[in-house]
């Protein structure tokens, strides 16, 4: 059956489909410190992301919204990753994932941090979908920066 579907498996690895079907941390966060929306009007992805920050570390994440399998799974993977991370660690992870999706090398240490997220690398063969994979990450980076400076 996947024969006719060609390279689909590169894009939709099992781990991606799992996060898509059962996204993590979907409960809204009360009294969030960081609260923002990201959207890509062209494909109709919209997420509302909330963080509770304690001692410069992300204590709680909540992501609601809707999107394609890639943006949804990516947001869910993000939610899983950032909990407990300092904002510097989050920035570093965003930088790693940007490079991963651009097709640049990442170090073994970076790969360790990303963990399951490396499954998103299959998106590189589908360049129009890279935006979907990056959507929540870019938004998070911007929102955290804004939180720190303001």
């Amino acid at each position, binding site marked *: *059956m996947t024969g006719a*579907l*060609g390279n*689909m498996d590169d*894009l939709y690895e099992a781990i991606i489909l799992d996060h898509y079907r059962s996204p993590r941390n979907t409960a809204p966060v009360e009294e969030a410190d960081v609260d923002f929306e990201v959207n890509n*009007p062209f494909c109709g992805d919209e997420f509302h992301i909330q963080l509770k920050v304690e001692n410069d570390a992300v204590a709680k994440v909540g992501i609601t919204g809707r999107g394609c*399998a*890639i943006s949804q799974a990516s947001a869910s993977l993000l939610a899983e990753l950032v909990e407990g991370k300092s904002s510097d660690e989050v920035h570093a992870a965003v930088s790693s994932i940007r490079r991963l999706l651009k097709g640049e090398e990442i170090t073994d240490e970076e790969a360790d941090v990303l963990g399951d997220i490396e499954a998103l690398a299959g998106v590189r063969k589908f360049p129009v*979908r890279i935006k979907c994979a990056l959507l929540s990450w870019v938004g998070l980076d911007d929102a955290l920066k804004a939180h720190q400076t303001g």
Partner: protein
Amino acid sequence: MSNPEFGSRVFDVDAIRADFPILQRKINGNDLVYLDNAATTQKPNQVIKSLVDYYEQTNANVHRGVHTLSIEATDGYELARTKVAKFINAPRPEEVIWTRNTSESLNLVAATWAEANVGEGDNIVITAMEHHSNIVPWQQLADKKGAELRYLPHNEEGLIELDSATGVIDYRTKIVAVTHMSNVLGTINPVAKLAERAHSVGAVILVDAAQSVPHMPVDVQALDADFLCFSAHKMLGPTGIGVLWGKYDLLEAMPPYMFGGDMILEVTYEDATWNDLPYKFEAGTPNIADAIATGAAVDYLTELGMDNVWQHEQELTDYAMEQILSLGSVRVLGPQNPALRGGVISFIHDTIHPHDLGTALDQQGIAIRTGHHCAMPLVRSFDVVAAARVSFYIYNTKSEVDAFVSGLCETEGYFSR
């Protein structure tokens, strides 16, 4: 030239397909099944050849040249205009203005006719199912002029009920700008009746015919339209060229849109006088090659006969609608009765996001469009931000519809592993 409605060539899909080189392409190892015709259509050899012939044998700048190439280029350019005029039954070829695309045609009318005729407290009426290109110019103009932008609503099936126009179109309405056929819902709007309504209050009617002129016989006189806009690239023609048709007296009274070479009769260091129609609206070197190739596209469609084109698409739509609805997992937007709509089917799958569906079908060689289809407010009114869309043209077949439906089933299987 034969009558555009009836055609002089047998409508034989296999023969038609042989005219389209791109249909030989393999996509990800599969035959291309091109179902994105509302976005743009493919081009037959006849149109491609027209471009090649022009550049290999005739190419020159038009108008006012005394040398042979320039004279031939001018003749070809003007002959294409005449073909287009005949195709939409325009009374005079000078009423056909070449633009870049439908969007430019719409902007031209907003920036000239409406700029001069819409004032504070007036209103502009459009429908709630317009393409962005027929929304945003009016939003901007209304804003600038202190006028009101009003939306003609549609019912749940996506049809405009004429009763709803009462109270929306009123004595302060200056222009009614409506799509002839929705690029999302497929709905065909009652343009002739709306024209009557518009004229009864002294307003003009503009018809966005981007999705109708390519697919059905369109007669500007029968519709009693005042302006009509469409794009060549959606009707077998090249990219980069579109048409604004307008009633002679309206065009004649309008100020120019752009200024420059060709649209001018006389220039001094102080002042300028405008050239006659249609040149008043064609500043600078025109898109000569693509205008001539548009003539070739019109010839092609005229030979097939627009009645036959329409009938072919009706059959396909009918068949596709049945197949898609029988899946049970898909919601179709717009009227389900194929007699009320053209060959565009937008739908939403219960579980698969349009974007994922688009990628999965592309792996199988099937090209569909996904997203907001440049009609965000309309798509959102169905409580979604994106939809998938298939749209048909003369070269599509029932077996391509089958390929699409089975591709959809494959995808369902894949995502429910």
